């Protein structure tokens, strides 16, 4: 998906969240409503207007020590309010690579 | 912003005079390249050293005729990632044999001190107090250098040859 690192104007098309990577280990994290970060997408604060998104992003970016590379990402809200990633990129960030990591044993082929 | 010179924080004898402002009656002054080139003789006629702030997107050629009389040349790092002043510094020191104060200004951070020294800077307007205080320690990070610059340090290639010669000479 077009790299959100190239986002210039902030304009959201639907429910969105702010996501980043944790500074000390690079893990994927989501900005919560309580001005913190969680590794669980379910904890992410949802914004629905461009102003809200801008504010949430600004507050996230200000936490330079805890997180790096913060940006706004789309989500889908499923039944019962469950938050799902809004595009392939965010799916991959949450669930991992789509290709299967190699088994550590010698010679085992990678599962597609 | 602390000035580091001679390896430690020192007072800055130069007063930076912005374009349009009056020059002080005497004392060392640092002026923009535009102002300097308007009338270099008038500036040199004052008592007090003359320093020029040279932009990093301009060849140093126009400055060369005045180098012998200048008390300081300040080069600029608009961000630490913009490395044009390193080339300017080396040209001034190594090609044009400038011997006066060569000052690094702009976003001058700890992790570029060694590069700057090697390029020929000897004065630093350091952005952060903590970095200025750590100057002496920081410049000792590296004891080995691969490539020659004007800093006179022996490069790795030549050090090896030196070792080989002394080995074969039985030293």
């Amino acid at each position, binding site marked *: 998906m077009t790299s959100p690192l190239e986002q210039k104007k902030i304009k959201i098309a639907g429910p969105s969240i702010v996501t980043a990577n944790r500074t000390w*280990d*690079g893990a994927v994290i989501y900005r919560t409503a309580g001005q913190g970060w969680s590794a669980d997408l379910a904890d992410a604060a949802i914004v629905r207007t461009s102003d809200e998104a801008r504010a949430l992003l600004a507050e996230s970016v200000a936490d330079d020590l805890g997180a790096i590379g913060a940006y706004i990402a789309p989500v889908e809200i499923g039944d019962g309010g469950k938050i799902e990633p809004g595009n392939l990129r965010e799916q991959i960030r949450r669930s991992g690579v*789509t290709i299967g990591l190699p088994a550590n044993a010698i010679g085992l082929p990678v599962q597609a | 912003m602390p000035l580091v010179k001679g390896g430690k924080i020192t007072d800055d004898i130069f007063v930076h005079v912005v374009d349009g402002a009056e020059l002080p009656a005497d004392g060392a002054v640092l002026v923009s390249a535009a102002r300097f080139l308007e009338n270099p003789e008038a500036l040199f006629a004052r008592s007090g050293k003359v320093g020029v702030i040279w932009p990093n997107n301009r060849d140093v050629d126009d400055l060369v005729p005045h180098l012998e009389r200048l008390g300081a040349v300040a080069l600029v790092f608009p961000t630490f990632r913009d490395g044009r002043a390193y080339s300017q510094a080396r040209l001034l020191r190594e090609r044009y044999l400038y011997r006066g104060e060569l000052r690094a200004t702009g976003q001058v951070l700890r992790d570029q001190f060694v590069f700057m020294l090697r390029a020929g800077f000897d004065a630093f307007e350091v952005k952060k107090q903590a970095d200025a205080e750590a100057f002496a320690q920081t410049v000792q990070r590296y004891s080995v250098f691969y490539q020659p610059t004007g800093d006179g340090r022996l490069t790795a290639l030549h050090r*090896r040859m030196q070792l080989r010669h002394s080995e074969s000479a039985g030293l």
Partner: protein
Amino acid sequence: MYAYDEIDRTLVNERVAEFRDQVKRRLSGELTEDEFKMLRLQNGVYLQLHAYMFRVAIPYGTLSSKQLRRLAHVARRYDRGYGHFTTRQNIQFNWIKLAELPDALADLAEVGIHAMQTSGNNTRNVTSDQWAGVAPGEIEDPRIWSEILRQYTTLHPEFSFLPRKFKFAITASAHDRAAIKVHDIGLRLLKNEAGETGFEVLVGGGLGRTPFIGKTIKPFVHGRDLLSYVEAIMRVYNQYGRRDNIYKARIKILVHELGVEKFAAEVEEEWQQMRDGALKLDEEVVEDIRSRFYYPTYEKLPHMPDELRKAAQDPKFEAWRTNSVFPHKAQGYAIVTISLKPVGGPPGDATADQMDALADLADKYSFGEIRVGHEQNLALPHVARRDLPELWKALDKIGLATPNVNLISDIIACPGLDYCSLANARSIPIAQELTRRFANHDTANLIGRLHINISGCINACGHHHVGHIGILGVEKNGEEVYQITIGGRADEKAELGTLIGPAVKFDEVADVIEDVVEAYLALRARPDELFVDTVKRLGVEPFRERVYATR
């Protein structure tokens, strides 16, 4: 194999200490990300989708078995048990933690491995021919000069903050395995009439958003002038390269905007003022570097030993031998390419276990030396032909004997959207599916030499522009779609590929490639006319017609 001495080790250790301090100041908040980012990049540390990525330098693609084992250790201890070999002869680890990086670097420093300048706006790995030192007909080992350049460019105070990244490549063979024509500076080693070593210097090659083939700015630079001439080029670039727009900041843009004659003149003017300075290399200095390269003492061995004659009965061994074994300059020896492109696997990956096992095989059969190629395969450069059968059995056991080198399933691919935060689309699943479609080795051999290159975004880390078939992933309305080009080449006849038609969806790519291959098989003049030559002869139109007829 270049042997580090006290001086080289000291530099690497001082670098590790510096980075440890920088990480500490980052994690304490003393350095902001804005101040730290370029510092971590200068040590090969990227931020990717899931985690940091750590790119370790393998200078000119040469490794000792000890070093390969240490890479395996890093994969196990700090990562998830595997590494990825890149199109610039480096290795990448995808799951590294910033806080543990200084320790990983310290572990690597012990065996003379570093990650200096594998990223950032500085001079990157000086890449070369993975067969350097052993290829028949090579003029001289280009790695001597790669090492001279490596040292010269490492922590160069003037050129550590360039407008953009800067890449060198050197070749010393008629067939260019180092792709010098698509590098910022490409060097072709040759001898003048007096038999002295020098270089044809090409500048401004590169791929990405605006691909260019490099242009010769000086047909012969004497070896002793190499460093001063390079310094002149870099000084012109450092001062005049664009800094206002990262998409126009490479030297190729400067060469294009000035014109090659004017650019060459600027370099010449600068060079004339410094050519006799401290960078002039004397014979003694070059010999010193040369003397620290280790070359094996080859035995006098027969070209057709008994072991090989016997093993020829085994069709599986023969399939591998005829595919993966290449002539060596010393009689009785061979260069063995190790395919890292198993059917269904991500191209260019090796597990820690495979690395350890390969290190042992290198000790046993290749004087302890391994090579990394830019096509993301490895090589054992000094194998006695009598050892080939035993070596093959061992490689086969660890999944490193797929006989598809240079064939259609020997795919070069960037990590793509599965890993990389710059990507627009995935590349690895495309590669995997293609290896499955063309898993039959008879079919692959029938098709013949065919390089597929896949990039997941316009940055072209998969070198798709110069693939015989190039595949570029882009995004359209939230979907992954792929542009297909044909007719590119990366060697001495370097050329950019041509688009064959509109982009196709993820699920259709493999079908389209099958159609392209079918078209080739129907159109080729003879069975031994290579795909890329058929495209050259006929142009893109016949392929376009057939592939898009039903689409």
